[in-house]
């Protein structure tokens, strides 16, 4: 599925900062369905070769334990599972979190701090994948350059399981 991607360089005066940072705004749409469960969501960064270099968030039923643990459905986040999830031990510190209800979420990550850590200079993709129990799956991608020379914003929108996603990177 093609997503419209707009990258706009907002010409902010370069503020000297010790570490670059990344802000992600993500919308989980409200859906009219007979049976609704909050989606599982994975947010991660891939390098140009498609290798996952950092998983920023994995939202799932962390509190479900036992025979049908929440981890059971993590492979439904198919792309993330293949690229990163299956080699992580869940729950993972600073990554795992509970599922979230429909709404807008603002997340912030700093360079040099887990889970973002340090990225080598280059072209990257932010990927956001959502999978919902008895529902669908969607993957949204926003490319970006790192480190950012100036503040840059990229946005993309899902059509079913995800709403608007906005990525802002700042030096």
């Amino acid at each position: 599925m093609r997503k419209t991607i707009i990258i706009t360089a907002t010409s902010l005066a370069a503020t000297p900062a010790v570490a670059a940072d990344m802000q992600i705004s993500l919308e989980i749409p409200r859906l009219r369905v007979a049976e609704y469960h909050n989606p599982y969501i994975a947010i991660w960064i891939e390098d140009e070769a498609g290798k996952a270099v950092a998983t920023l968030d994995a939202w799932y039923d962390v509190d479900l334990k036992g025979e049908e643990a929440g981890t059971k459905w993590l492979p439904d986040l198919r792309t993330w599972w293949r690229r990163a999830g299956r080699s992580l031990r869940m729950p993972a510190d600073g990554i795992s979190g509970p599922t979230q209800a429909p709404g807008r979420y603002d997340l912030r990550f700093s360079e040099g701090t887990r889970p973002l850590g340090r990225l080598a200079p280059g072209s990257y993709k932010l990927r956001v994948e959502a999978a919902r129990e008895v529902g669908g799956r969607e993957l949204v991608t926003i490319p970006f350059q790192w480190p950012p020379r100036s503040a840059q914003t990229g946005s993309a929108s899902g059509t079913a399981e995800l709403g608007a996603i906005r990525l802002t990177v700042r030096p």
Partner: protein
Amino acid sequence: MFAKPTLLAAGLAVGLAAFMPHKAEAHRRWLLPSSTVLAGEGTTVTVDAAASNGLFTFDHRPMGLDDLKVIGPDGQPVQHKVIGSGEFRSVFDVPLQQQGTYRIAIANEGMSGVYTLNGERKRFRGVADQVPAGATDVRVTQNASRVETFVTLGAPTETALQPTGQGLEMIPITHPNDLVAGEEAQVRFLLDGQPAAGLEVEFVEGGTRYRDDAGIQTLTTDSDGVLTLTAARPGMYYVEASQGGGQGGPGGGEGEAPARVSSYTAVLEFLPL
């Protein structure tokens, strides 16, 4: 008007039967797992085992589970739990407690053939010493067959995928639980541990009931026994190959060696990315 096509069909059937290569088993035999890619500390996969014409529909016979063996990520056998056999299929559970890849297989080796005793032609199945003393005109076929599938808990591993060196085997080059529709997957076929070059392999997407075209891709391995599989659509796919055929002598001493038939089938899941 109506008789002609019928006669023609009958003629064709006879003609085809005469030229059809020997098939060890007329029906497709398969192990269909409930999932191939799993997550968590420990879970269970349940598997249907059947011989059928349709893929993957239960329309003929259940498969016997006497020779079922599950190899775990550490290369050691894993105890499965047989649920039972119905009219059309057998069912068993495999508990997955270790992270990694499991090879689930029904593999057997046996012998079958015919002999003449006191002027009577008799069939036998099992081992060579079932041929009684005094039997003449002994014709023997050695059969090796493997029907298998693969599942992975967590990250894929390789230990369970090592060749056994017996009969026809498919050794994955692309991991069998890392298959994606639209991406090429490579496998290597071995016969008794050696590359099976020029082997004809059938590759069929499941869901045959819902389409007119049988959809059989007939592929041939290269000189290293390597084959490339490409699934256009995500789904469960069936792989089948066999080699050898006919009948030979009883073997032993200076007699003619028995003929050999090796057959292999697997079920592979290709996921959407």
